[in-house]
């Protein structure tokens, strides 16, 4: 299913970025809203995949499979000269 593939890609992209630019300084928690629908409600998750950066503050959300690497890094505040 398309949705599932997007989520896979998002996770892959995210993991890749974090490994490359924040080795050892990151943690990723994956929540499957199909399994935990109450999270979708409480966090107002409408789009999937949604990535919520909980730290550093401010918290921000990104929806989409993060296939646009540049935008993804820019939004997450990750620069490649680290």
């Amino acid at each position, binding site marked *: 299913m*398309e*949705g599932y593939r997007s989520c896979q890609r998002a996770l892959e992209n995210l993991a890749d970025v974090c490994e490359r630019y924040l080795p050892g300084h990151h943690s990723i928690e994956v929540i499957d809203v199909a399994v935990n629908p109450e999270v979708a409600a409480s966090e107002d998750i409408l789009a999937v995949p949604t990535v919520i950066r909980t730290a550093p503050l401010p918290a921000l*959300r990104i929806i989409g499979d993060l296939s646009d690497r540049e*935008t993804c890094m820019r939004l997450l505040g990750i620069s490649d000269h680290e």
Partner: protein
Amino acid sequence: MIEKTSMTSSNEAISKAPTGIKGLDEITGGGLPKGRVTLFLGQSGVGKTVLAMQILARGTLDYGEPGVFISFEETAEDLAANFASLGYDVPGLSAEGRLILDYIQLYPGAFYEAGKYELEGLLLRITNIVDKIGAKRIVLDGLPALFQGFSDAGPVRAALIRIVEWVKSRNITCIVTAENEAEMARQGIGRTISDCIVLLENIMENNIATRYLSVVKYRGSAHHSDRFPFLITDGGISVLPVTSIIMDYAVSEERLPTGIEALDSMLSGGYMRGSSILISGGSGTGKTSVACHLAAAACERGERCLYYAYEESKSEVFRNMRSIGIDLERWEKQGLLRFHTERVSHYGLESHLVNIEDMLEAFKPGIVIFDPFSDMQDIGPFFQVKGMSQRLIDHLKSRGVTALFTNLSEGDHASPATSIGVSTVMDTWIVLRNHESVGELTRLLYVLKSRGTAHSNRVREFLLTEKGVKLVEVYMGPGGILTGSARDLQYREDGIELENRRRDIEHKKRELENKRRMLQAQIDALQEEIREAEMELKNDIAFSEEEEARIRLRQRMGQQQADKGEAHTVEPG
């Protein structure tokens, strides 16, 4: 008019979910399409949300179908407050698992977009709420707001289609609200998702706004395509039912007392039940008094009466009626009289109709009075008011309600035509007129027409006494109708006149007698003369005849002697 649309190929009648709103169920032929999507279109504030809420609430209260209300525009608290203002106990219903309200928040800048996504979360949220209570009805209020939240319409459209498919597969009746079709079409989901479209409009006519509802589309079902007026009242939406306009109604033979004895006689017993009565007249002619007599008479019988007063306040009317011996307050206290005072200009013509219909439904009166109905001309052109009154009368007749309308005729002219042309649709028409004579103003009443009734065409004098309205005979004087003290005066004068004439006649009779005697005496004298003359003549004639005879004898004797040949001189013997 009813528009027939093509039926589904399987020839199955569409299954419908009743809305619980009387007029709307009639217009849609039974309700909204069950298990399908209905689109409510209309500007902000016209009433889409109220209508959707009401259908949801009635669905669970009247038809045992739990409902879910999802709003993309209002918070859950606001929603709950709105529901509550319509009189629905949201916490209670929620606790019972019959109704759930949910606000799905979307605000720009809440997230960033980076890549492809789907609205799986939205779907899950909706399906979970629905499954939680086994909802059979769902409202998606302000759906287009969903599109505002995301830059790409694609995923939203896809999600919407999935939601609709899911809802249909579960046979859940779905209502979607949006401001206009363009909004929906822009996102590429226009007409295709909905099987039924209901349009709500707020239309300005003569500076008064009236709300209208129309079924623009209903796949697989016949429906009325006209616009129908509706009101938003305390209890929600009221739509004027269509059947009220059908003209096929039973007629009654029963007579209702008018409350004025003499008028009952003039109308062979009273007003016919279920008929329409018009009381027209200039200012101060007594129309309200006639109307209130009917109200009082009805209440005395235990019948309920609904009174719309468009000019005077309740206390004014009550006080005025008390002065002629009618106690309306008593009936109001007993709940038999419902008195409404309002200015007609507060509503449009259509809204008045809906209002009255609501009252008829709630109070179920046997009599309705509109005083003065002529005020309606202030809120619409002639033909509209006439049309509205015809519909109103049809509506009342179909319920067997007797209706009395008073009409203020401008100026006190002899022609009592109404300025709103309603006289033709009335069964009974009573005219009141002021009448001036000998420096005094009195009142007259006459029955101009009364369909189906043998009625008196005599003019009566109309008196307001402490014991109510009394009608008395008028007096015809040489100059016309006379009433009041002019009548008394004329009566006396006529009496004197009669006496004079009588004496005159007596006198003349005597004169005649004298003359006759005199002439008779002359005749007698003349006759006597004739007799004498005759007598004389007879004597003369007799004498002459004797003479003649003697002469003849002489002649004969002379001749005889001549014949004997002797000439004798005859000596006188």
